[in-house]
């Protein structure tokens, strides 16, 4: 049998968005798994907590994400159990090291023309700099470290809103409100998104990934832009 390569994603997750706030980093993603235009599963979490230190999330092919998470969990475990110092010091995998490791993995896969078809978001607390860390790695191995990140559709729909409202001294509550607002917009306008989302945050104390919950979009369909324009009330609705 001839060797096969990834040419297109089949079972996918949509945008992951994230921001750095005063004291931590927070990321969000919905829990919809799409199979082309079919909504395959409504409760599929795409944000992971690695060793209570690092948050990992990705959009794109879900099976590739599962592979990546398996590799990452193995690496993190190896770091705490196998490394030379681990019997003397409590050593845990830093977020930035994981980000760099993923870069190498993604680059190697893309160089074999067989990528992991994902945009991965890595978040954590950078102990060396005593600051939150937020970065992305895409399917080519392109790395980006920024205060605001968004993968997929989020880059077009959510990023302008995040950039408008973001300040580097946001409180946790404000950060959460901003992310939820952006996720709501994504639900309205990304047809592969759902209102059931998951939030995850990381501070110097550790990481928490929330259970999936529904956004309140009960008022959204009343927005002026959602109401049928007067122009197509006559005739057959065409324009």
């Amino acid at each position: 049998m001839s060797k096969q390569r990834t040419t297109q994603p089949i079972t996918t997750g949509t945008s992951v968005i994230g921001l750095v706030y005063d004291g931590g980093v927070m990321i969000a993603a919905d829990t919809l798994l799409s199979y082309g235009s079919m909504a395959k599963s409504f409760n599929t979490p795409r944000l992971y907590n690695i060793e209570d230190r690092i948050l990992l999330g990705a959009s794109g092919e879900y099976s590739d994400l599962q592979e990546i998470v398996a590799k990452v969990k193995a690496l993190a475990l190896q770091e705490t159990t196998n490394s030379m110092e681990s019997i003397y010091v409590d050593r845990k995998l830093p977020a930035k090291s994981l980000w760099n490791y993923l870069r190498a993995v993604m680059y190697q896969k893309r160089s074999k023309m067989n990528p992991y078809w994902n945009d991965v978001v890595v978040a954590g607390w950078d102990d060396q700099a005593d600051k939150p860390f937020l970065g992305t790695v895409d399917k080519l191995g392109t790395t980006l470290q920024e205060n605001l990140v968004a993968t997929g559709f989020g880059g077009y729909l959510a990023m302008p809103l995040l950039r408008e409202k973001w300040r580097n001294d946001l409180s946790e509550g404000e950060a959460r409100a901003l992310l939820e607002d952006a996720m709501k917009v994504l639900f309205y306008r990304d047809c592969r998104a759902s209102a059931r989302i998951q939030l995850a945050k990381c501070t110097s104390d550790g990481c928490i990934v929330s259970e999936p919950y529904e956004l309140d979009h009960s008022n959204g369909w009343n927005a002026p832009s959602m109401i049928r324009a007067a122009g197509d009330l006559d005739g057959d609705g065409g324009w």
Partner: protein
Amino acid sequence: MNAVSISSGRLYVMCMMAWLVLVTHPVIASFEPYQLNGGLVSAVAGKTFAIIGTDTRMIGEGGYLLESRNHLSSRLWSVEDDTLMLEIESALRSDAAALRAVKPVPIKITGPTTMVGSSGCSTDCSQLQRVVRADLRAASYYGQVSSFDPAQVANLVSQTLYSRRVFPYYAFCVVSGLDSNGGGCGKVYVYDAIGSYEQVAVAAAGTGRELLQPILDRLFTSNGNANLVNESADAAVEYLCKAYSSVSEREIGVGDNLVLHISETDTEGKVSSRVLVVKLKDH
């Protein structure tokens, strides 16, 4: 039935089948391993200085998505393992307004002066950086090189780029540094993605190169030695700022901030480096 009509019938059937195969073959989705991430790098060599500069904009998939206004790590790097550019990137990220001033910021007194700027596909530029640094680190450890002179580094970059001739690093580079053998004069080299390079006085590479190079060619002068400009370092900085401002008006992949790394040799032969960060107009 005679032989001619049998063979022409068969010929007709074969033509028909060939045409059917051609028009009905499935279109295979494929993966594109490259992405143009924008960025414009440039360098100027003078009698007592070498300047290398880049903008900090990173664009994403499709060419219209702006991913970052503060990207430096794959764009401008020293051949030694120092983190100067990463620190500047981090500072831009946390408090851009405070950093952006056309004011000399002395970073190091003596230190790496040989710098590489690379633009094109950001992931390939990052990989190139790792490979070149690893090779130089190993060569230095085993005593094969004692200093990272621009001429040596330039050759190594060329060899590294050519080693991937069949699946190129999509990295258009410039190399700049002070030549310790030449009395501390600047040396600048410019590349294409597969390693062909030449020493020049003024170099540009990346998106918007066609807009920048002619401006720099005209602003700078050089007599005799075609690989050095007559202007002083301060004049060169001024020209580069103006030129980048012009390019960022019309090239979407160029803008946000201009980071200039300047290495100079003073009259006693002492080397100093500084970095300037200049805000380009908001577009």
